[in-house]
């Protein structure tokens, strides 16, 4: 069992809602197979946590559990004392493949604003923020990959989430789109949104992460600040992964 290291708290900004996470004895079985094992995790109240690990390590499942989209087989997940299942509404998730409604770009944002009872006048500012104001009236599903993901991000931010989950949002995007999305996420973080990020992109991880949770075979085998994880990974599996040698 690995010992959770002490993570230096990211600077809390004014207006920031602290969102510390406590996970105890988390276990998940799917179809009789155990995919996450007795997982304990403490995340600080702010900043960007990067969840890393090879394919099949359980990253996306962990993300969904933390977001309250799935119920664990055993264990507890609490955001600042609130069980994950009741915290979903204050959070947003951006999927690897954006799920866009069969409507215009603007209507996609309107839909979320309306569903959450938010003022729709925010829409133009949001689209402007992600650089899609000029495409507001276009069909959302005709956007390019990068544009589509920016729209998904705008939609996620429309809910003013306390926690923003990102599940490999930039996989298969070109470098310019990747940077644009990282810029938007960084701004959200700077405004105090707690960010939980899954990625395989090592450069992205180093640019964005405050701390790193490393999953291997359904266990958290390492959790360290970014500035120690990348130069000095503690475990062989993480070393192998960082050097591109890991084989599942």
């Amino acid at each position, binding site marked *: 069992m690995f010992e959770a290291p002490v993570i230096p708290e990211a600077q809390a900004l004014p207006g920031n809602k602290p969102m510390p996470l406590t996970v105890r004895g988390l276990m998940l079985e799917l179809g009789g197979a155990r995919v996450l094992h007795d997982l304990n995790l403490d995340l600080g109240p702010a900043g960007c946590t990067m969840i890393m690990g090879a394919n099949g390590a359980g990253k996306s499942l962990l993300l969904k559990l933390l*977001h309250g*989209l799935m119920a664990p087989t055993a264990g507890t997940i609490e955001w600042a004392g609130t069980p994950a299942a009741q915290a*979903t*509404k204050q*959070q*947003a*998730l951006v*999927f690897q493949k954006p*799920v866009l*409604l*069969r*409507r215009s770009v603007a209507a996609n944002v309107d*839909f*979320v604003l309306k*569903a*959450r009872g938010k003022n729709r006048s925010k829409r133009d500012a949001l689209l402007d923020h992600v650089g899609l104001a000029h495409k507001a009236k276009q*069909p*959302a*599903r*005709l956007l390019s990959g990068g544009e589509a993901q920016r729209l998904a991000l705008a939609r996620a931010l429309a*809910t003013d989430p306390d926690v923003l989950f990102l599940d490999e949002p930039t996989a298969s995007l070109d470098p310019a789109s990747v940077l644009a999305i990282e810029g938007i996420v960084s701004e959200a973080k700077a405004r105090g949104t707690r960010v939980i990020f899954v990625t395989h992109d090592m450069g992205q991880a180093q640019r964005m992460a405050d701390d790193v949770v490393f999953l291997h075979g359904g266990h958290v085998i390492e959790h360290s600040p970014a500035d120690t994880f990348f130069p000095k990974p503690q475990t062989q599996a993480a070393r192998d992964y960082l050097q591109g040698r890991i084989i599942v």
Partner: protein
Amino acid sequence: MQSLGDALGLALSLVLSGDADLLEIVALSLQVSLTATFIACLIGLPIGALVAIGRFRGRGAVLIVMNALMGLPPVVVGLLVYLHLSRSGPLGFLGLLYTPTAMIIAQTILIAPIVAALSRQVLEDLHGEYAEQFRSLCLTRLQTVQALLWDARYSLLTVGLAGFGRAVAEVGAVIIVGGNIDHLTRVMTTAIALETSKGDLALALALGIVLLVIALGVNAAVQSVRMTATRQAYV
């Protein structure tokens, strides 16, 4: 034997001459079947949507019943509606038998299950794509149903078309509850049945051709709407 050519010529001359009786019959056919389709959608779409997103006990049985009801024989529906609307039936006091309203009721009962069952399939497929995103957004059931119905609107148009096609083409139900009364409840299909029974096969076939052309027209209109939607990736 009267040839198809005769019938085609007759159909053409009927249409071109703007035959008043024909126009009246065509108008009533469209009025009855479009109204029935509209009401069947009002009933069938919400049911289809609720079953599509619902996870409840007995859902499998509901699906079987919905799918089986798609094959309701029109004449049975006609008979059931007749028994209810007949002066001696429970709803006889309404005086609806042998009116276009009775025909609309019968056709609505006939096609509402078709709309419900087909829309259930369409909406369930779409929900499969949206479900996780919607759960992340914590949408209510009502919000989910509304969003699915709106986003599937062009596919549902085809569902409505299937219902309309069945309604406008059936004769068994409307001839019983409408009575095929001239200038009151005579529609395309009952007129075709009448001309056939009079042995005027050419006229019957000509009316059939007109019905076919109307069906083609409605389908073409829906298709062109769908193609526009497809270009915008809204389908």
